[in-house]
């Protein structure tokens, strides 16, 4: 049993913390302005210049194999995510969506790797996830987007929904059906589709938190066969490996800890100003946020060992953290009631914490949905963790 960091991990964390401490209040507001300008969100935040800064400091792609990254351990990867998200640094693609680049390194041809990875490392190339479709959300393998082989190209037809960042990215990494006779997880392939290709239409979809996701339409889009990752019809395995990489990421817990820490500092030395119910809530949330972190650490450790229980453990962390974040957000809004007035994209000149509480209550609506709904997580726990039979 060991929850400590190695000396190397500690030094690495210090490096991330030092970077974060450079960010002044004014700088953070500039990042937020950048995010807002690109239709980004505060719940999975990203700002181009922040991404560049991370790239300059060697903090992009740390877990990618050499020579691109340095093959960081899963613990280090967890620490990077925790330190960046936990400090509010706008880094979402670095901590989550870079699974796309991992997939390229693992499954792309040498030419594709050479073409993509250096640009991703420098922050000059970004990727959107192309998984869900209008008729295929939780039931992902019901997807209908097809890629029909025509010589050295595929002709892609269909659409992808919830493609966050697609309007700012250069590629969408899309799961498509390459075997028209197949069903479910068989006959799927992963394709890198250039978003400036003829026949691609990106339409904005605005969501409750005030940010933009997208629907991408593909009308006979021609994609080189060389843009396929891995063997034809083996896309489901690539997807599965990518999801395994991300299973210990916190969905809402880390953000909640930052907000609670800020609240504790606001009321430092002023416990008597809070009533008993608020004190109880603070103690209870502080405890459950510790539990949430431990569930994610456990998933991380199990994943690193290749334990069979890792999938269920990841679902436990995701389920627990996202539902806890919603509950915490509601309570925080009650405690800071003025936050209900902060509807201008979460920026306030007089009470930033209240403004953040307001965006958090809206933003957490998606946390129990994105990355697999709570219902899907419960199914995974029940079937893969507890061995209960699948439903009819």
């Amino acid at each position: 049993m060991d929850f400590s960091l190695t000396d190397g991990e500690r030094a690495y964390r210090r490096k991330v913390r030092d970077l974060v401490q450079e960010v002044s209040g004014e700088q953070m507001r500039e990042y937020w302005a950048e995010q807002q300008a690109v239709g980004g969100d505060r719940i999975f935040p990203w700002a181009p210049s922040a991404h560049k800064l991370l790239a300059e400091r060697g903090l992009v792609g740390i877990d990618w194999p050499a020579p691109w990254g340095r093959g960081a351990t899963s613990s280090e990867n967890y620490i990077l995510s925790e330190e960046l998200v936990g400090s509010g640094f706008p880094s979402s693609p670095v901590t989550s969506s870079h699974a796309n680049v991992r997939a390229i390194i693992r499954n792309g041809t040498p030419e594709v790797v050479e073409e993509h990875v250096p640009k991703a490392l420098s922050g000059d190339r970004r990727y959107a996830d192309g998984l869900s479709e209008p008729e295929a959300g939780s039931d992902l393998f019901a997807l209908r987007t097809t890629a029909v082989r025509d010589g050295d190209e595929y002709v892609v037809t269909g659409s992808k929904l919830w493609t966050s960042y697609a309007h700012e990215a250069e590629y969408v990494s899309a799961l498509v059906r390459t075997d028209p006779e197949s069903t479910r997880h068989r006959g799927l392939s992963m394709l890198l589709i250039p978003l400036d290709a003829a026949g691609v239409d990106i339409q904005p979809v605005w969501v409750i938190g005030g940010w933009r996701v997208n629907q991408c339409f593909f009308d006979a889009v021609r994609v080189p066969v060389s843009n396929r990752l891995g063997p034809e019809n083996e896309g489901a395995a690539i997807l599965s490996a990518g999801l395994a990489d991300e299973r210990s990421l916190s969905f809402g817990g880390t953000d909640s800890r930052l907000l609670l820490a800020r609240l504790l500092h606001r009321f430092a030395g002023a416990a008597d100003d809070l009533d008993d119910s608020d004190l109880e809530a603070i103690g209870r949330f502080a405890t459950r946020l510790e539990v949430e972190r431990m569930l994610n650490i456990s998933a991380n450790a199990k994943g690193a060992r290749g334990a069979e229980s890792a999938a269920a453990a990841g679902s436990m962390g995701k389920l627990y953290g996202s539902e806890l974040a919603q509950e915490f957000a509601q309570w925080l809004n009650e405690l800071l009631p003025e936050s209900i007035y902060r509807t201008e994209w979460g920026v306030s000149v007089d009470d930033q914490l209240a403004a953040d509480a307001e965006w958090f209550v809206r933003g957490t609506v998606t946390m129990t949905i994105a990355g697999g709904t709570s219902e899907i997580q419960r199914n995974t726990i029940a079937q893969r963790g507890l061995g209960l039979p699948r439903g009819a």
Partner: protein
Amino acid sequence: MFDERWSDETREVSSALRSLLEGTCDEPAVRAAESSADGRSREVEQHLREFGLHDLPAEPELLAAVSVELGRSLAPVPWVELTAVRILLDVEDAVYALESDPPAGPGSAVVATASGIGLVANQGERERTAAGDFLVRVDRGLAEQRWGEEDAQKLRALTHMLAAARVSGAASKLVEIGVTYAKERQAFGRSIGSYQAVAHKLADAATAAEGLELIVKKTAWLAARDGANGVPQPIFGLMTWSHAVEVGRLVARNVHQCMAGFGATLESPAQLYSRRLRSWALRLGRPGDAHREIARILLTPQRRDAVEGLWHEERGVTVPRWARELDVTV
């Protein structure tokens, strides 16, 4: 690299203890103890004594893991209540009773006094509890103070962790009972575990039980670090215990619902667990009180900054520079 598993040495002891308890403290043995005049099982006590349970080294991880196993088997022995007293106060045969009455059997009880803690004879009117044991209405006024508030705090923190570990073991076992039932029980032509309404309740119960075990482990791990002297920090004691109360109740509620009428019968093993989980929850103070104390620690800068290992922090609770600059204070 993180590792959430008990150490090899601890697993060896846990495994041996589980084997012993499966053979000596099975369901009939628990029911027999419940039906006895004092709720105890002399046979189980003897087996555990021979196992060396009362002479274990004061290693937090080992003690927590043992407590988990005792909870899994509902061992009718006051080991949790005896152990912290033996280790921290160096008193044999005395049980912890700071917040509620002591379990019957041991010769004396540690109770709160005006400004510390003291010993009192474990004698008085005995009442059977929902957990099948007996608690003794001791005369707390007869206790003379022998230890100060600092000792009381340590005693409380270690007992909190051990009691939470016991709940963790019982809750995990109850989830297993519910899962086994859900796999076997058929309704509308298939096993009820294939219905999401049932499966999701068990998934929630399993998640809660897993989370409890992990916070117990974290608490024990922190207590074993240099300078902690094998005693959990008060805030972690409060967190593990208050969380154990909530988890025990949630697991009991969900598993009973999944097992429906059968789980509520006295024939079912489920009620043996749920009664204890709910009874134990009443013995170390109300979780709301613990939560308020946790909040007061975290809201008092000096106390907050002395906390080690909360969340991702080395010490205290920090906020990034940008937030310090943008946030207002009261």
